[in-house]
């Protein structure tokens, strides 16, 4: 686990939109098991990743988030049947849009896991944090107060 506040920039913030049935439950389990994951991760609970839309993520990035991860259920396991499938398609669309805007598409990423996979939640949080560290702070933050 890494703490990214050592470089000469404020700590990187990564929003994690987690569906309550799988990813959020996994994060919760990780907490109960006293497993550590990077403090950069700010969890936002959703009923389903199908609730994700382009505007939410764009606003997050415009407001200064350095990264956005969308964590939902494994294929075939979505509580609302197709929410995770729709989320995956939209994340792909957002990444293309970010490319056109001039922001790195890698700042947004989708992960899939089950409610029992506490270890996987830790792994993806660390992986996402590493990736965002490599990219550096959101360049849009420069002009913000």
């Amino acid at each position, binding site marked *: 686990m890494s703490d990214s506040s050592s470089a000469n920039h404020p700590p990187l913030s990564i929003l994690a939109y987690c569906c309550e049935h799988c990813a959020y439950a996994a994060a919760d389990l990780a907490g109960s098991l006293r497993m550590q994951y990077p403090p950069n991760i700010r969890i936002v609970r959703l009923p389903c990743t199908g609730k994700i839309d382009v*505007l939410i993520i*764009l606003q997050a990035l415009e407001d200064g988030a350095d990264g956005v991860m969308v964590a939902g259920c494994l294929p075939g396991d979505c509580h609302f049947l197709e929410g995770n499938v729709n989320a995956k398609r939209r994340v792909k669309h957002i990444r293309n849009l970010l490319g*056109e*805007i001039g922001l790195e598409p890698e700042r947004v990423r989708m992960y899939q896991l089950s409610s029992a996979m506490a270890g996987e939640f830790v792994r993806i949080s660390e992986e996402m944090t590493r990736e965002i560290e490599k990219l550096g702070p959101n360049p849009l933050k420069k*002009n913000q107060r």
Partner: protein
Amino acid sequence: MIIAEQKKLSEITALLGDASKVLVIGCGTCVTVCFAGGSREAAILAASLRMSTQLAGNGKQVADVTVQRQCEWEYLDQIAEQVKEADILLSLGCGIGVQAIAEHFPDKWVVPGLNTSFLGLPVEQGIWSERCAACGDCILGLTGGICPIARCSKSLLNGPCGGSEAGHCEVSKDIPCAWQLIYDRLSSLGKVEMLYELQPPKNWQKARDGGPRKITREDLLLGEKED
């Protein structure tokens, strides 16, 4: 309904030029239904433009507002204040909406954010297909409700041509052969003999070929008119 697609961000940015206060205007009717220019698309485009221009070093102020329909003056009156504040208006309406805004606010420069393509319908979510060519002289009563002007690549009235194969048009496997569809429909309804009639050449004067069209309904005009 009218089907349109958003232009690429780079093309829209180029159209904005040096303007620094942009008003993105969405439309709540056709382009909402085809996910090209509704309130959500307007908000996304506004955010995208703010972000991309900031990253490019010439950050613009971009606001967005959406009206029920851009093609009616009364709805445009409602956004007069926001329009006044802007240097440039970026319309996400169809070509009609863009022109209505330009006509209604003649002292503002208006640019289109969409490419208006055709009159059609959503066959399923995410897929829209052309259905009507607005030819001004509807012949759907002769073809079982399938339009050969819009749906046949050659607008044949006595089709099909020799390029029809396995139910699709020679131009593309994605285009069903309109005349195969017409033949099947009329056959299933027991009316295939209608196809043996020779259809004469079309009067294209009623279509756009005759010049831009206008319809006036005397019974609907307001105010007193001298007889």
